[in-house]
């Protein structure tokens, strides 16, 4: 099932999270978009395990913000082959409560009373079933050129696993899954697991690709500095990360963020930012605790924060999360939608891959 294109684009990330349940998932999205702005990755799609429409609206609002001013066919949150603005949303009732983070993003108004961060999501019908969205975008990827990043509960990931015909596609397309949930090697109950213990159990037991788990201990070791909120976003009068961060907790505070570490590792697994455990097997106990058992044939590893890398990582976090949106030329990352408009039979590529600009081609793996 190897892709049939001519140029392999950078690894794509499907980002699934409990968006807005805390600040972590927003920071992780900002980091991913910062890296995609540097053509280091592509954010293929967003899916959300928090069953609250506001989560989808806020995710869409942030995506639009990171897209920058509209440009025809611009680079950004684009997926290859499906609507790049698609947002998957769980509707199972889990974590349905409103949060200050979501309200801060959605309630903020401009001076003339309009939403500061407008969203195109008006209702659940403007969202998609997460498993279908992820499956569809994976089908458009070159083999082993996608990483599934799960920040929080595994609800959507296991729904994908259960979707008819999806498992072979996961095996073909997904290099590995990175999940920010749990605590390792053995730890207490963490919210990402607790909020859907059954899904976490199934994920670690049945997911067919390697899994790298990022525990709460990594997030604690590498928090996002509150000081950055005060100084690094001065380039804009209004930024959703700033507003959400301030709303999450009274300032000043540093935000533990396993999602940020997971996002950085997903895009740069071989750049030495983190250490990895030996292979083994992660099991989820009935009470939600996670347990790592070493074993040579195991498909699971967990991430280990390296104190020697802390300053470098924090600097990278702040630079990328606060980066200005980058508008890109048409053709990269948003394929699959438009036609060239040339007469029938004489068209160029109708989308799906597009033509990589030189910088992107150089970044392709």
């Amino acid at each position, binding site marked *: 099932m190897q*892709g*049939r*294109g001519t140029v392999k684009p950078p690894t794509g990330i499907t980002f699934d999270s409990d968006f807005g349940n805390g600040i972590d998932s927003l920071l992780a999205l900002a980091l991913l978009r910062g890296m995609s702005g540097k053509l280091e990755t592509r954010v293929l799609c967003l899916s959300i395990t928090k069953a609250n429409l506001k989560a989808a609206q806020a995710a869409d609002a942030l995506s639009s913000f990171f897209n920058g001013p509209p440009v025809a066919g611009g680079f950004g949150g684009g997926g290859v*082959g*499906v*609507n790049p603005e*698609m947002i998957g949303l769980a509707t199972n009732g889990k974590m349905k409560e409103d949060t200050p983070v979501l309200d801060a993003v959605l309630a903020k108004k401009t001076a003339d009373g309009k939403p500061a961060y407008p969203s195109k999501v008006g209702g*659940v*019908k*403007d*969202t*998609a*079933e997460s*498993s*279908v*969205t992820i*499956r*569809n975008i994976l*089908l*458009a*990827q*070159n083999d082993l050129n996608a990483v599934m990043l799960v920040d929080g509960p595994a609800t959507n990931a296991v729904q994908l696993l259960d*979707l*008819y*015909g999806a498992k072979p596609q996961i095996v073909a397309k997904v290099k590995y899954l990175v999940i920010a949930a749990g605590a390792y090697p053995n730890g207490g109950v963490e919210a990402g697991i607790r909020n859907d213990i059954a899904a976490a159990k199934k994920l670690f037991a049945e997911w067919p690709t390697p899994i790298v788990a990022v525990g709460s201990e990594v997030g604690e070791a590498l928090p996002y500095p509150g000081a950055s909120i005060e100084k690094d976003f001065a380039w804009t009068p209004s930024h959703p990360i700033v507003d959400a961060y301030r709303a999450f907790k009274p300032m000043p505070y540093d935000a533990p963020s396993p999602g940020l570490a997971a996002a950085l590792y997903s895009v740069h697994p071989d750049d030495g930012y983190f250490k990895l455990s030996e292979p083994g097997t992660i099991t989820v106990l009935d009470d939600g605790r996670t347990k790592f058992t070493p074993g040579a044939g195991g498909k699971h590893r967990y991430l280990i924060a390296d104190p020697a890398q802390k300053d470098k990582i924090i600097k990278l976090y702040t630079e990328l999360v606060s980066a200005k949106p980058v508008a890109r030329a048409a053709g990269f990352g948003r*394929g*699959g*939608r*438009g*036609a060239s*408009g*040339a*007469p*029938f*039979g004489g*068209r*160029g*590529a*109708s*989308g*799906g*891959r597009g033509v990589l600009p030189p910088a992107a081609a150089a970044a392709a793996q």
Partner: protein
Amino acid sequence: MGTAAIGLPFLDSMVPALAAPTKAPVRLAFLYVPNGIMMKDWNPAVDYEGKFAAELPRAMKPLDAFKDDMLQLGNLTHNSGRALLDGAGDHGRCSGSYLTGIQVKKTTIDIKASVSCDQLIANKIGGQTRFPSLELGMDDARQAGDCDSGYSCAYTNNLAWRSETQPLPPTLDPRVFFERLFGDGAILTPEERVRQAKDRQSILDFVTADTKKLETSLGPTDRRKLDEYLSSIREVERQLEKAEKDNSQINPGMDKPYGVPADFAEHFKLLTDMVTIAFQSDMTRVLTFMVTHEGTSRAYREIGIPDGHHPCTHHQGKPDLIEKVSQINEYHTKQLAGWLAKMKATKEGDGSLLDNSMIIYGAGLSDGNRHLHEDLPTLLIGKGGGYLKSGRRIVYRRETPMCNLHLTLMDRMGVPVENFGDASGQLDPASLT
């Protein structure tokens, strides 16, 4: 019927084989129009319950008289029609995947799709009718060659696929279609057909009644033998009933067409008039109709459009081209309305033939200019035998697989299938009823 003469509990199972059906069968038809539809002319205003507003948008306006007979379904998507990793060829892919639900192989030689949903239905219930399914088209039945960026014409010109390598080409010529349906033989009057059936049935009654007399004097083993004997008679009855259908001569009430009319509307009317008869007489319950083939550049001089349909759809925002596409879309639904009127005027039971049908009218692209495969324009017309609560627009969640509709339709046709294409499940029944 003959079963009354037998009148024994263990022969009650014969009743369905002989009795006239108490409920009319449901007919399923797929009408496909190419090159997408001007979506600005498609999605109607609705009230809070999804009921159509008084004024339908332009492309649907000709269907005003059938507001209460149809559902408009929003956000259905064919991911298999998208490029994914196969580059150009949205037209070839979208029609190839429309009823098969898979991404067809990009080739002009060793074509590969999958069994289409209409054929899955025909395979299961087609034995009950003279024709398991019928396939129609109006402008191109080429089965070879490159019709879109490396996609075989077999993909752009066929909707129905009997196997993954065998499409069922549409019949284009009304005369050929007429002869297929009605043949050239003498036509029996209704009285003659009734007399013929009655004569044959009375013989079977006699046989079964006579053998029944023996039963009381038989032991268990012989009774079992008798049972087997009666079962074999029942099988003969089934075969005769089927043969009667196969050989029955339907008076079409129309003259044999001379061939393919130059006029689009006349061509459409001839074909659909015969479909109405075929449905009415239960000659088939499954139809696919590729109104014009995907990617067609057919001109519509009948309505003053000498330009090709497909080039017009790549309008690049030019108002004159957009207007032409709108006119073509409207012209198509105007023809559809003519057929629906006939279906609605054809009484069946307490309702109409339309009430007992599910007619899907749609396209494999939404925006033909941009080649979008999401929010495909889809009408579900008819009441499906009383199942569908029509008169509404139903908007599903984005990316809802079109194959979910196909799964639902198969189920309603009595062919429940667990998986089809990229379906994630049937459409929520509560949304339809």
